[in-house]
Protein backbone atom coordinates (compact mmCIF):
# COMPACT_ATOMS: atom_id res chain seq x y z
CA UNK A 1 0.00 0.00 0.00
CA UNK A 2 1.34 3.40 -0.94
CA UNK A 3 2.57 5.54 1.92
CA UNK A 4 0.66 8.56 0.77
CA UNK A 5 -2.53 6.61 0.96
CA UNK A 6 -1.85 5.74 4.60
CA UNK A 7 -1.08 9.34 5.39
CA UNK A 8 -4.35 10.39 3.87
CA UNK A 9 -6.26 7.80 5.89
CA UNK A 10 -4.47 8.90 9.03
CA UNK A 11 -5.22 12.57 8.35
CA UNK A 12 -8.84 11.80 7.58
CA UNK A 13 -9.23 9.96 10.87
CA UNK A 14 -8.02 13.10 12.69
CA UNK A 15 -10.03 15.54 10.64
CA UNK A 16 -13.28 13.61 10.88
CA UNK A 17 -13.13 12.63 14.52
CA UNK A 18 -11.83 15.98 15.78
CA UNK A 19 -13.55 18.12 13.15
CA UNK A 20 -10.43 19.95 12.15
CA UNK A 21 -8.55 20.74 8.92
CA UNK A 22 -5.51 18.95 7.42
CA UNK A 23 -3.39 22.12 7.69
CA UNK A 24 -3.97 22.21 11.47
CA UNK A 25 -2.63 18.72 12.17
CA UNK A 26 1.12 19.34 12.36
CA UNK A 27 2.13 19.61 16.02
CA UNK A 28 -1.43 18.95 17.27
CA UNK A 29 -1.54 17.54 20.80
CA UNK A 30 -4.18 16.17 23.16
CA UNK A 31 -6.25 19.02 24.65
CA UNK A 32 -4.79 21.60 22.22
CA UNK A 33 -8.25 22.03 20.74
CA UNK A 34 -11.60 21.65 22.46
CA UNK A 35 -12.62 18.75 20.25
CA UNK A 36 -9.64 16.67 21.38
CA UNK A 37 -10.80 15.97 24.91
CA UNK A 38 -11.40 12.48 26.30
CA UNK A 39 -14.57 12.08 24.23
CA UNK A 40 -12.73 13.20 21.10
CA UNK A 41 -9.85 10.88 21.91
CA UNK A 42 -12.06 7.80 21.88
CA UNK A 43 -13.54 8.91 18.57
CA UNK A 44 -10.06 9.38 17.18
CA UNK A 45 -8.91 5.94 18.32
CA UNK A 46 -12.02 4.34 16.84
CA UNK A 47 -11.43 6.18 13.54
CA UNK A 48 -7.77 5.10 13.38
CA UNK A 49 -8.60 1.51 14.24
CA UNK A 50 -11.24 1.43 11.55
CA UNK A 51 -9.06 3.12 8.93
CA UNK A 52 -6.23 0.61 9.32
CA UNK A 53 -8.30 -2.36 10.48
CA UNK A 54 -6.28 -2.77 13.69
CA UNK A 55 -6.98 -3.19 17.42
CA UNK A 56 -4.73 -0.99 19.47
CA UNK A 57 -3.23 -1.97 22.83
CA UNK A 58 -4.36 -0.08 25.94
CA UNK A 59 -0.93 1.47 26.39
CA UNK A 60 -0.90 2.74 22.82
CA UNK A 61 -4.39 4.19 23.14
CA UNK A 62 -3.21 6.24 26.11
CA UNK A 63 0.13 7.07 24.52
CA UNK A 64 -1.29 8.50 21.33
CA UNK A 65 -1.12 12.03 22.64
CA UNK A 66 -0.04 13.93 19.52
CA UNK A 67 -0.43 13.79 15.77
CA UNK A 68 3.27 13.00 15.28
CA UNK A 69 3.53 10.44 18.08
CA UNK A 70 0.52 8.59 16.67
CA UNK A 71 2.42 8.05 13.43
CA UNK A 72 5.37 6.61 15.35
CA UNK A 73 3.12 4.22 17.27
CA UNK A 74 1.37 3.05 14.13
CA UNK A 75 4.57 2.51 12.17
CA UNK A 76 6.50 0.87 15.01
CA UNK A 77 3.82 -1.41 16.39
CA UNK A 78 1.15 -1.86 13.75
CA UNK A 79 3.16 -2.01 10.52
CA UNK A 80 1.59 1.09 9.07
CA UNK A 81 4.15 2.80 6.85
CA UNK A 82 3.99 6.51 6.21
Amino acid sequence: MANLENLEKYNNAFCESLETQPDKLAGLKYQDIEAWDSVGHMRLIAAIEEAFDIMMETDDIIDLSSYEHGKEILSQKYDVEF
Partner: protein
Amino acid sequence: MWNFNNFKNNAAIIDDCGVVLNYAQLKDESEKIAAEIKRRCLIFILCGNETGAILGYAGCMNARTVPALLNKHLDNDLLNNLLDAYKPAYIWLPESLLNNFKNFELVYKAYNYCLLKTNYDKEFELYEELGLLLTTSGSTGSPKFVRQSYLNILDNAQAIANYLELNELERPVTDLPMNYTYGLSVINSHLLVGACLLVTEKSLMQREFWSFIKENKASSISGVPYTYEMLDKMRFSRMQLPDLKTMTQAGGKLTPELHKKFAEFALNNNKKFIVMYGACEATARMGYLPAEKSLEKYGSMGIAIPGGKFYLVDENLNRINQPFVTGELIYEGKNVTLGYAESGEDLIKGDERHGVLETGDMAQFDADNYYFIVGRKKRFLKMFGNRINLDELDRLIKAEFEIECACGGVDDKLYIFILKLDEDKASLIREFAANKTKINLSGFKVIALDEIPKNDSGKILFKELAKYYEA
Protein backbone atom coordinates in the same frame (compact mmCIF):
# COMPACT_ATOMS: atom_id res chain seq x y z
CA MET B 1 -18.58 19.44 59.15
CA TRP B 2 -15.43 17.33 59.57
CA ASN B 3 -13.27 16.81 62.62
CA PHE B 4 -9.79 16.59 61.12
CA ASN B 5 -8.27 16.21 64.61
CA ASN B 6 -9.40 12.60 64.69
CA PHE B 7 -6.88 11.59 62.03
CA LYS B 8 -3.98 14.03 62.55
CA ASN B 9 -1.23 11.80 61.21
CA ASN B 10 -3.15 10.18 58.36
CA ALA B 11 -2.33 11.33 54.86
CA ALA B 12 -5.25 13.47 53.67
CA ILE B 13 -4.20 14.68 50.23
CA ILE B 14 -1.62 13.54 47.70
CA ASP B 15 -1.70 15.49 44.46
CA ASP B 16 -0.08 15.05 41.08
CA CYS B 17 2.19 18.07 41.64
CA GLY B 18 3.89 16.33 44.54
CA VAL B 19 2.00 17.96 47.41
CA VAL B 20 1.36 15.66 50.39
CA LEU B 21 -0.70 16.85 53.35
CA ASN B 22 -1.75 14.97 56.46
CA TYR B 23 -4.96 15.76 58.33
CA ALA B 24 -3.21 18.11 60.77
CA GLN B 25 -1.89 20.11 57.81
CA LEU B 26 -5.24 19.95 56.06
CA LYS B 27 -6.80 21.46 59.18
CA ASP B 28 -4.17 24.23 59.50
CA GLU B 29 -4.07 25.18 55.84
CA SER B 30 -7.84 25.19 55.40
CA GLU B 31 -8.33 27.20 58.61
CA LYS B 32 -5.89 29.82 57.38
CA ILE B 33 -8.11 30.49 54.36
CA ALA B 34 -11.25 30.60 56.50
CA ALA B 35 -9.52 32.94 58.97
CA GLU B 36 -9.14 35.54 56.22
CA ILE B 37 -12.90 35.59 55.85
CA LYS B 38 -13.93 35.04 59.47
CA ARG B 39 -17.65 35.27 58.90
CA ARG B 40 -20.70 33.68 57.40
CA CYS B 41 -21.05 34.97 53.85
CA LEU B 42 -21.14 33.70 50.28
CA ILE B 43 -17.96 32.71 48.44
CA PHE B 44 -17.57 31.44 44.87
CA ILE B 45 -14.94 28.72 44.50
CA LEU B 46 -13.71 28.19 40.94
CA CYS B 47 -12.52 24.63 41.21
CA GLY B 48 -10.11 22.40 39.48
CA ASN B 49 -9.21 19.05 40.99
CA GLU B 50 -6.38 20.68 42.87
CA THR B 51 -5.21 20.82 46.46
CA GLY B 52 -5.90 24.56 46.67
CA ALA B 53 -9.55 24.09 45.73
CA ILE B 54 -10.07 21.34 48.30
CA LEU B 55 -8.42 23.39 51.06
CA GLY B 56 -10.67 26.36 50.29
CA TYR B 57 -13.76 24.19 50.23
CA ALA B 58 -12.93 22.35 53.46
CA GLY B 59 -12.00 25.57 55.25
CA CYS B 60 -15.24 27.29 54.28
CA MET B 61 -17.44 24.32 55.14
CA ASN B 62 -15.91 23.93 58.59
CA ALA B 63 -16.17 27.67 59.28
CA ARG B 64 -19.78 27.92 58.00
CA THR B 65 -18.85 30.28 55.16
CA VAL B 66 -21.11 29.22 52.29
CA PRO B 67 -19.31 28.15 49.10
CA ALA B 68 -20.82 27.91 45.63
CA LEU B 69 -18.66 25.47 43.67
CA LEU B 70 -18.14 26.19 39.98
CA ASN B 71 -15.87 24.69 37.38
CA LYS B 72 -12.80 26.86 36.78
CA HIS B 73 -13.38 26.41 33.05
CA LEU B 74 -16.89 27.86 33.25
CA ASP B 75 -17.69 30.17 30.34
CA ASN B 76 -16.98 33.81 31.23
CA ASP B 77 -20.44 35.10 30.33
CA LEU B 78 -22.07 32.44 32.46
CA LEU B 79 -19.76 33.22 35.36
CA ASN B 80 -20.55 36.92 35.08
CA ASN B 81 -24.28 36.16 35.14
CA LEU B 82 -23.79 34.20 38.34
CA LEU B 83 -21.67 36.93 39.93
CA ASP B 84 -24.35 39.51 39.09
CA ALA B 85 -27.12 37.34 40.46
CA TYR B 86 -25.45 36.33 43.74
CA LYS B 87 -22.80 38.97 44.52
CA PRO B 88 -20.50 36.75 46.57
CA ALA B 89 -18.37 38.51 49.20
CA TYR B 90 -15.30 36.49 48.19
CA ILE B 91 -13.94 34.39 45.32
CA TRP B 92 -11.38 31.59 45.79
CA LEU B 93 -9.82 30.80 42.42
CA PRO B 94 -6.72 29.47 40.67
CA GLU B 95 -3.95 32.02 40.35
CA SER B 96 -4.04 31.55 36.57
CA LEU B 97 -7.48 33.21 36.46
CA LEU B 98 -6.48 36.23 38.52
CA ASN B 99 -6.22 38.52 35.50
CA ASN B 100 -9.95 38.25 34.85
CA PHE B 101 -10.73 39.97 38.15
CA LYS B 102 -8.48 42.99 38.32
CA ASN B 103 -11.01 45.12 40.16
CA PHE B 104 -11.17 42.85 43.21
CA GLU B 105 -8.68 42.96 46.07
CA LEU B 106 -6.30 40.05 46.55
CA VAL B 107 -6.24 39.18 50.27
CA TYR B 108 -4.61 35.75 50.53
CA LYS B 109 -2.75 33.20 48.45
CA ALA B 110 -1.91 29.53 49.04
CA TYR B 111 -1.34 26.40 46.96
CA ASN B 112 -1.73 28.30 43.65
CA TYR B 113 -5.14 29.60 44.66
CA CYS B 114 -6.07 33.17 45.52
CA LEU B 115 -8.69 34.75 47.75
CA LEU B 116 -10.32 37.85 46.31
CA LYS B 117 -12.53 40.21 48.25
CA THR B 118 -15.23 41.55 45.97
CA ASN B 119 -16.76 45.01 46.19
CA TYR B 120 -20.45 44.48 45.48
CA ASP B 121 -22.73 47.02 47.07
CA LYS B 122 -25.06 44.36 48.39
CA GLU B 123 -24.95 41.05 50.23
CA PHE B 124 -27.83 38.61 50.33
CA GLU B 125 -28.99 37.08 53.57
CA LEU B 126 -28.25 33.39 54.08
CA TYR B 127 -30.61 30.84 55.63
CA GLU B 128 -28.98 29.56 58.82
CA GLU B 129 -28.79 25.91 57.74
CA LEU B 130 -27.61 26.66 54.17
CA GLY B 131 -24.22 24.98 53.74
CA LEU B 132 -23.36 24.81 50.07
CA LEU B 133 -24.52 25.74 46.58
CA LEU B 134 -23.99 23.46 43.58
CA THR B 135 -25.11 23.65 39.97
CA THR B 136 -27.03 20.74 38.49
CA SER B 137 -23.94 19.51 36.60
CA GLY B 138 -23.02 20.70 33.08
CA SER B 139 -25.40 23.64 33.58
CA THR B 140 -26.22 25.74 30.57
CA GLY B 141 -26.01 28.99 32.40
CA SER B 142 -29.32 29.69 34.04
CA PRO B 143 -28.16 31.11 37.35
CA LYS B 144 -29.67 28.19 39.22
CA PHE B 145 -28.13 26.50 42.23
CA VAL B 146 -29.20 23.59 44.39
CA ARG B 147 -29.26 24.64 48.05
CA GLN B 148 -27.72 21.99 50.28
CA SER B 149 -27.80 22.10 54.09
CA TYR B 150 -25.10 20.98 56.51
CA LEU B 151 -27.34 18.12 57.59
CA ASN B 152 -27.87 17.08 53.93
CA ILE B 153 -24.15 16.85 53.29
CA LEU B 154 -23.22 15.16 56.53
CA ASP B 155 -26.06 12.65 56.37
CA ASN B 156 -25.27 11.70 52.78
CA ALA B 157 -21.53 11.41 53.41
CA GLN B 158 -22.24 9.11 56.37
CA ALA B 159 -24.64 6.95 54.36
CA ILE B 160 -22.09 6.63 51.54
CA ALA B 161 -19.26 5.78 53.95
CA ASN B 162 -21.58 3.20 55.51
CA TYR B 163 -22.74 1.31 52.40
CA LEU B 164 -19.33 1.47 50.67
CA GLU B 165 -17.76 0.37 53.98
CA LEU B 166 -15.18 3.15 53.78
CA ASN B 167 -12.32 3.37 56.26
CA GLU B 168 -9.09 5.32 56.67
CA LEU B 169 -7.18 2.92 54.42
CA GLU B 170 -9.10 4.01 51.32
CA ARG B 171 -7.26 5.95 48.59
CA PRO B 172 -9.82 7.21 46.08
CA VAL B 173 -8.69 9.10 42.99
CA THR B 174 -10.61 12.29 42.21
CA ASP B 175 -11.23 11.53 38.55
CA LEU B 176 -14.51 13.49 38.46
CA PRO B 177 -14.70 17.29 38.82
CA MET B 178 -15.15 18.36 42.45
CA ASN B 179 -17.84 20.89 41.55
CA TYR B 180 -19.88 17.97 40.26
CA THR B 181 -22.05 16.44 42.98
CA TYR B 182 -20.77 12.89 42.45
CA GLY B 183 -17.13 14.01 42.44
CA LEU B 184 -17.74 16.05 45.58
CA SER B 185 -19.44 13.16 47.35
CA VAL B 186 -16.24 11.14 46.97
CA ILE B 187 -14.33 13.92 48.76
CA ASN B 188 -17.00 14.46 51.45
CA SER B 189 -17.38 10.81 52.37
CA HIS B 190 -13.67 10.05 52.44
CA LEU B 191 -12.72 13.09 54.53
CA LEU B 192 -15.25 11.83 57.06
CA VAL B 193 -13.37 8.57 57.62
CA GLY B 194 -9.80 9.91 57.49
CA ALA B 195 -8.93 8.40 54.09
CA CYS B 196 -6.37 9.77 51.63
CA LEU B 197 -7.55 11.66 48.53
CA LEU B 198 -5.44 11.21 45.41
CA VAL B 199 -5.95 14.51 43.65
CA THR B 200 -5.39 14.88 39.93
CA GLU B 201 -6.62 16.93 37.02
CA LYS B 202 -5.47 14.39 34.47
CA SER B 203 -7.98 12.41 32.47
CA LEU B 204 -8.26 8.68 31.89
CA MET B 205 -6.82 9.31 28.45
CA GLN B 206 -3.47 10.43 29.82
CA ARG B 207 -0.53 8.28 30.74
CA GLU B 208 0.12 10.53 33.77
CA PHE B 209 -3.26 9.56 35.21
CA TRP B 210 -2.47 5.86 35.17
CA SER B 211 1.06 6.24 36.49
CA PHE B 212 -0.26 8.52 39.25
CA ILE B 213 -2.85 6.00 40.44
CA LYS B 214 -0.45 3.07 40.16
CA GLU B 215 2.32 4.81 42.10
CA ASN B 216 -0.07 5.96 44.79
CA LYS B 217 -1.99 2.71 44.98
CA ALA B 218 -5.46 4.07 44.29
CA SER B 219 -8.10 1.87 45.88
CA SER B 220 -11.14 3.19 44.05
CA ILE B 221 -12.25 5.03 40.94
CA SER B 222 -15.59 6.58 40.14
CA GLY B 223 -17.12 7.08 36.75
CA VAL B 224 -20.13 8.18 34.75
CA PRO B 225 -21.45 5.85 32.03
CA TYR B 226 -19.13 7.42 29.50
CA THR B 227 -16.13 6.69 31.73
CA TYR B 228 -16.99 2.99 31.63
CA GLU B 229 -17.49 3.08 27.88
CA MET B 230 -13.99 4.52 27.59
CA LEU B 231 -12.53 1.99 29.99
CA ASP B 232 -14.17 -0.75 27.98
CA LYS B 233 -12.75 0.55 24.68
CA MET B 234 -9.35 0.88 26.32
CA ARG B 235 -9.64 -2.81 27.21
CA PHE B 236 -9.38 -1.91 30.86
CA SER B 237 -9.70 -5.52 31.98
CA ARG B 238 -6.17 -6.13 30.73
CA MET B 239 -4.64 -3.43 32.90
CA GLN B 240 -2.78 -4.51 36.01
CA LEU B 241 -4.18 -2.55 38.94
CA PRO B 242 -3.92 -4.85 41.96
CA ASP B 243 -4.58 -2.07 44.49
CA LEU B 244 -7.80 -0.98 42.83
CA LYS B 245 -10.60 -2.65 44.81
CA THR B 246 -13.71 -0.61 44.15
CA MET B 247 -15.24 0.87 41.03
CA THR B 248 -18.37 2.96 41.41
CA GLN B 249 -20.66 4.23 38.68
CA ALA B 250 -23.30 6.98 38.76
CA GLY B 251 -24.34 10.02 36.73
CA GLY B 252 -26.68 8.25 34.34
CA LYS B 253 -27.68 4.79 33.27
CA LEU B 254 -24.99 2.42 32.08
CA THR B 255 -26.11 0.06 29.31
CA PRO B 256 -27.12 -3.33 30.76
CA GLU B 257 -24.42 -4.98 28.59
CA LEU B 258 -21.65 -2.87 30.08
CA HIS B 259 -23.09 -3.23 33.57
CA LYS B 260 -22.90 -7.00 33.17
CA LYS B 261 -19.43 -6.88 31.68
CA PHE B 262 -17.95 -4.82 34.51
CA ALA B 263 -19.84 -6.84 37.14
CA GLU B 264 -18.31 -10.04 35.75
CA PHE B 265 -14.88 -8.49 35.54
CA ALA B 266 -15.09 -7.31 39.16
CA LEU B 267 -16.32 -10.65 40.49
CA ASN B 268 -13.56 -12.51 38.67
CA ASN B 269 -10.83 -10.15 39.83
CA ASN B 270 -11.62 -9.68 43.49
CA LYS B 271 -12.96 -6.18 42.97
CA LYS B 272 -16.29 -4.54 43.70
CA PHE B 273 -18.36 -2.87 40.99
CA ILE B 274 -21.10 -0.72 42.46
CA VAL B 275 -23.72 0.98 40.33
CA MET B 276 -25.36 3.88 42.10
CA TYR B 277 -28.13 6.38 41.58
CA GLY B 278 -28.35 9.98 42.69
CA ALA B 279 -28.90 13.63 41.90
CA CYS B 280 -27.64 16.98 43.06
CA GLU B 281 -31.14 17.62 44.46
CA ALA B 282 -30.56 14.71 46.87
CA THR B 283 -27.10 16.07 47.81
CA ALA B 284 -25.53 13.23 45.81
CA ARG B 285 -26.59 9.66 46.48
CA MET B 286 -30.03 8.00 46.71
CA GLY B 287 -29.54 4.40 45.66
CA TYR B 288 -26.91 1.74 45.09
CA LEU B 289 -26.72 -1.83 43.91
CA PRO B 290 -24.67 -3.83 46.42
CA ALA B 291 -21.59 -5.37 44.82
CA GLU B 292 -22.70 -8.92 45.59
CA LYS B 293 -25.88 -8.32 43.55
CA SER B 294 -24.11 -6.59 40.65
CA LEU B 295 -24.29 -9.56 38.32
CA GLU B 296 -27.59 -11.05 39.46
CA LYS B 297 -29.36 -7.68 39.12
CA TYR B 298 -27.39 -6.03 36.34
CA GLY B 299 -29.31 -3.15 34.75
CA SER B 300 -30.73 -2.19 38.14
CA MET B 301 -29.63 0.83 40.19
CA GLY B 302 -30.49 -1.09 43.32
CA ILE B 303 -32.04 -0.09 46.60
CA ALA B 304 -32.23 3.09 48.67
CA ILE B 305 -29.13 4.06 50.65
CA PRO B 306 -29.15 3.60 54.45
CA GLY B 307 -31.68 6.04 55.94
CA GLY B 308 -33.44 6.62 52.61
CA LYS B 309 -36.62 5.29 51.03
CA PHE B 310 -37.84 4.79 47.44
CA TYR B 311 -41.36 4.40 46.11
CA LEU B 312 -43.20 4.88 42.84
CA VAL B 313 -46.32 6.89 42.08
CA ASP B 314 -48.61 6.79 39.05
CA GLU B 315 -49.97 9.77 37.12
CA ASN B 316 -52.59 10.40 39.81
CA LEU B 317 -49.90 10.33 42.48
CA ASN B 318 -51.17 7.01 43.84
CA ARG B 319 -48.57 4.69 45.23
CA ILE B 320 -47.65 1.71 42.99
CA ASN B 321 -47.49 -1.59 44.87
CA GLN B 322 -47.09 -4.05 42.00
CA PRO B 323 -43.67 -4.94 40.61
CA PHE B 324 -42.82 -4.17 36.97
CA VAL B 325 -45.20 -1.20 36.74
CA THR B 326 -43.68 2.10 35.62
CA GLY B 327 -44.13 5.18 37.77
CA GLU B 328 -42.26 8.28 38.85
CA LEU B 329 -39.55 7.51 41.36
CA ILE B 330 -39.92 9.35 44.66
CA TYR B 331 -37.14 9.45 47.24
CA GLU B 332 -37.33 10.34 50.91
CA GLY B 333 -34.37 10.97 53.16
CA LYS B 334 -32.45 13.54 55.17
CA ASN B 335 -30.23 14.19 52.15
CA VAL B 336 -33.08 15.69 50.12
CA THR B 337 -31.86 19.24 49.65
CA LEU B 338 -33.60 22.46 50.69
CA GLY B 339 -34.58 23.50 47.13
CA TYR B 340 -33.25 25.70 44.35
CA ALA B 341 -31.97 29.24 44.27
CA GLU B 342 -32.46 31.28 41.10
CA SER B 343 -31.07 34.53 42.48
CA GLY B 344 -29.43 35.96 45.58
CA GLU B 345 -32.83 36.71 47.13
CA ASP B 346 -33.50 32.96 47.33
CA LEU B 347 -30.57 32.28 49.66
CA ILE B 348 -32.68 33.16 52.70
CA LYS B 349 -35.26 30.50 51.80
CA GLY B 350 -35.63 27.55 54.14
CA ASP B 351 -36.47 23.93 53.45
CA GLU B 352 -38.99 23.72 50.61
CA ARG B 353 -38.89 19.96 50.07
CA HIS B 354 -39.24 18.57 53.58
CA GLY B 355 -37.30 15.44 52.83
CA VAL B 356 -39.26 14.37 49.74
CA LEU B 357 -37.86 14.48 46.21
CA GLU B 358 -39.79 13.81 43.01
CA THR B 359 -36.85 12.60 40.96
CA GLY B 360 -38.34 13.12 37.50
CA ASP B 361 -37.10 9.64 36.62
CA MET B 362 -39.50 6.90 35.58
CA ALA B 363 -38.74 3.56 37.17
CA GLN B 364 -39.97 0.05 38.00
CA PHE B 365 -39.12 -2.32 40.82
CA ASP B 366 -38.80 -6.07 40.52
CA ALA B 367 -40.15 -8.82 42.76
CA ASP B 368 -37.22 -8.33 45.17
CA ASN B 369 -37.75 -4.55 45.33
CA TYR B 370 -34.71 -3.65 43.25
CA TYR B 371 -35.28 -0.52 41.17
CA PHE B 372 -34.70 -0.05 37.44
CA ILE B 373 -34.70 3.35 35.72
CA VAL B 374 -36.71 3.12 32.50
CA GLY B 375 -37.07 6.74 31.37
CA ARG B 376 -37.25 10.38 32.22
CA LYS B 377 -40.12 12.74 32.83
CA LYS B 378 -38.26 15.99 32.41
CA ARG B 379 -36.64 17.56 29.39
CA PHE B 380 -32.98 16.98 29.97
CA LEU B 381 -30.23 14.75 28.61
CA LYS B 382 -27.08 13.33 30.10
CA MET B 383 -24.22 14.25 27.82
CA PHE B 384 -21.10 12.28 28.71
CA GLY B 385 -22.23 12.43 32.34
CA ASN B 386 -23.30 16.07 32.35
CA ARG B 387 -26.92 17.01 32.74
CA ILE B 388 -28.05 19.37 29.99
CA ASN B 389 -31.39 21.09 30.35
CA LEU B 390 -32.90 21.18 26.86
CA ASP B 391 -35.22 24.11 27.52
CA GLU B 392 -32.28 26.17 28.77
CA LEU B 393 -30.27 25.36 25.68
CA ASP B 394 -33.27 26.31 23.51
CA ARG B 395 -33.37 29.68 25.21
CA LEU B 396 -29.63 30.28 24.87
CA ILE B 397 -29.67 29.53 21.15
CA LYS B 398 -32.77 31.61 20.51
CA ALA B 399 -31.28 34.56 22.35
CA GLU B 400 -27.93 34.35 20.60
CA PHE B 401 -29.12 33.79 17.02
CA GLU B 402 -32.66 35.19 17.17
CA ILE B 403 -34.04 32.14 15.41
CA GLU B 404 -36.65 29.49 16.03
CA CYS B 405 -35.23 26.24 17.38
CA ALA B 406 -35.97 23.14 19.46
CA CYS B 407 -33.51 20.86 21.22
CA GLY B 408 -34.08 17.17 21.75
CA GLY B 409 -32.29 13.86 21.54
CA VAL B 410 -31.08 10.91 23.53
CA ASP B 411 -28.25 10.62 26.04
CA ASP B 412 -24.89 11.52 24.48
CA LYS B 413 -26.58 12.74 21.26
CA LEU B 414 -28.27 16.12 21.27
CA TYR B 415 -30.26 17.31 18.26
CA ILE B 416 -30.85 20.98 17.53
CA PHE B 417 -33.74 21.51 15.15
CA ILE B 418 -33.78 24.76 13.20
CA LEU B 419 -35.63 26.09 10.17
CA LYS B 420 -34.30 25.63 6.64
CA LEU B 421 -34.10 29.39 6.21
CA ASP B 422 -31.53 29.52 9.03
CA GLU B 423 -29.49 26.61 7.71
CA ASP B 424 -26.48 28.84 6.90
CA LYS B 425 -26.00 29.28 10.65
CA ALA B 426 -26.01 25.53 11.39
CA SER B 427 -22.32 25.09 12.08
CA LEU B 428 -22.15 28.27 14.15
CA ILE B 429 -25.10 27.09 16.23
CA ARG B 430 -23.47 23.75 16.78
CA GLU B 431 -20.21 25.33 17.91
CA PHE B 432 -22.09 27.75 20.14
CA ALA B 433 -23.93 24.88 21.86
CA ALA B 434 -20.72 22.91 22.41
CA ASN B 435 -18.97 25.98 23.70
CA LYS B 436 -21.67 27.03 26.16
CA THR B 437 -22.16 23.57 27.56
CA LYS B 438 -18.47 22.57 27.42
CA ILE B 439 -19.53 19.30 25.83
CA ASN B 440 -17.58 17.75 22.96
CA LEU B 441 -18.81 18.98 19.57
CA SER B 442 -19.40 15.42 18.41
CA GLY B 443 -22.39 15.18 20.76
CA PHE B 444 -24.37 17.77 18.77
CA LYS B 445 -26.22 17.51 15.49
CA VAL B 446 -28.17 20.27 13.78
CA ILE B 447 -31.13 19.33 11.58
CA ALA B 448 -32.92 21.90 9.43
CA LEU B 449 -36.66 21.38 8.87
CA ASP B 450 -39.31 23.20 6.83
CA GLU B 451 -41.13 23.81 10.08
CA ILE B 452 -40.85 22.77 13.70
CA PRO B 453 -43.91 20.66 14.55
CA LYS B 454 -46.27 22.34 17.01
CA ASN B 455 -49.74 21.70 18.39
CA ASP B 456 -52.67 24.14 18.07
CA SER B 457 -51.61 26.12 21.10
CA GLY B 458 -48.10 26.56 19.73
CA LYS B 459 -46.32 24.03 21.95
CA ILE B 460 -43.53 22.13 20.31
CA LEU B 461 -44.31 18.46 19.67
CA PHE B 462 -41.08 16.90 20.81
CA LYS B 463 -42.41 13.41 20.18
CA GLU B 464 -42.66 14.24 16.47
CA LEU B 465 -38.98 15.16 16.48
CA ALA B 466 -37.96 11.79 17.90
CA LYS B 467 -38.14 10.19 14.45
CA TYR B 468 -34.99 12.07 13.52
CA TYR B 469 -32.95 10.51 16.31
CA GLU B 470 -30.64 7.83 15.01
CA ALA B 471 -30.77 4.61 16.97
